[in-house]
């Protein structure tokens, strides 16, 4: 009986979470207006958390943050590790669309260097520099900026 209880509950809860985070239709019996309100509240909470821990993106996008984050969130579910990872995924999405400015690219690069391969580099096209980030023992991630002449695109 316990496994049956879990299976039935799992199905109900999964459908509810889909309705709240992925704009799926709410399960039967729920008040649709309340579900929409909750979904909006959850989205605002998610956006606010990323806004706070990725200030370079927040500054760089300014008034466009809300709309762009909404577009990104529609196709990217919240990572289990939380807003820092969510912001990184958002920054990557912006990068792919050439919407990330140099400050945002720097924050993205420093995050990359903090995990996995300890040396990362990236071209900052606006300031025409090459940023190199290195993760060192004890000191953490440090970076340098080198003038990097680039051909005008």
């Amino acid at each position, binding site marked *: 009986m316990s496994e049956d209880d879990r299976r039935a*509950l799992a199905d109900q809860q999964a459908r509810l979470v889909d309705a709240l985070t992925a704009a799926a239709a709410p399960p039967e019996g729920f008040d649709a207006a309340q579900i929409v309100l909750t979904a909006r*509240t959850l989205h605002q909470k998610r956006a606010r958390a990323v806004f706070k821990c990725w200030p370079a993106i927040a500054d760089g996008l300014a008034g466009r943050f809300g709309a762009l984050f909404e577009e990104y969130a529609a196709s990217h579910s919240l990572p289990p590790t939380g807003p820092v990872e969510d912001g990184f995924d958002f920054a990557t999405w912006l990068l792919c669309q050439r919407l990330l400015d140099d400050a945002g690219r720097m924050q993205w690069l420093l995050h990359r260097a903090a995990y996995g391969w300890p040396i990362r580099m990236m071209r900052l096209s606006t300031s025409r520099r090459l940023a190199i980030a290195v993760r060192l023992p004890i000191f953490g991630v440090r970076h340098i900026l080198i003038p990097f002449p680039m051909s005008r695109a």
Partner: protein
Amino acid sequence: MRRWRWRLNDARFHLGLGIGWRPQIALAIDHAPNLQFVEITAENFASAAALPEHLHQLRARGLAVVPHGISLSLGGAEPIEPARVRHLGALAGALGSPLVSEHIAFVRAGGREAGHLLPIPRTRASLRVLVENVKRAQDLLSVPLALENISALFEWPDRDYDEADFLAELVERTSVFLLLDVANVYANHRNLGGDPHSFFSRLPLKRIAYVHMGGGYENPLDGVYHDTHAHAVPQGALDLLADLASRAEPPGVMLERDDDFPDERELGAELARIRDALQLGRERRSAHVGR
């Protein structure tokens, strides 16, 4: 495996007045003259080794520190993850905590994170799953566990219990303690209706380990009350706290402030309002007993 079942009639905690520890108000917490405990969010610290020195300093001054989890998803259909429980336990061990706390909620389902505490159905089947998850968590902990009632903007359609009966049944089957969030009771009353006084009268009050108080605001566009923990505690929530205290003395009461942090003076005023509400409740209780 040794099972800890706190089959006591009363909560034996003596926590006093407390506050949620946040780095932004650490200095104000340090200066506050009447604090007796702080609560930390367990997920904000990667391990016991990552705990800030300030918490150890507060402990040295006699304050208790209570780890509060937000990601266990005890109300979820998926089996609980032992690593998350062990993390709570490790923090409690490092801080000498008298208990740990979590929520009656779920936060993930179908491989997707909700990013928020969501209510569970108050059905017999859902209670069976919750009880099983709670017992598994208690088996992995060597300190008592208290569970918090959450606020929500919606309810599940199927219901076998109302909230007070659901909590009473949960306590009966698991001996778990309650972290009564009076601000959430207030928020649910504003948004979903119900009678908080009747709710208090049917709760197992002696199982309350401590109480949460927090602020919120009403959205003027749709009248929905949001418990943001970023605003002053509303008078309605303070009135409910006085009502609770007129029935039974809570072993601990704390302020939750997560954002838009006020200055020391305002924080002190918030705590004073909580103390005043408790005192009002106490006076009503002794007047009632005296009759």
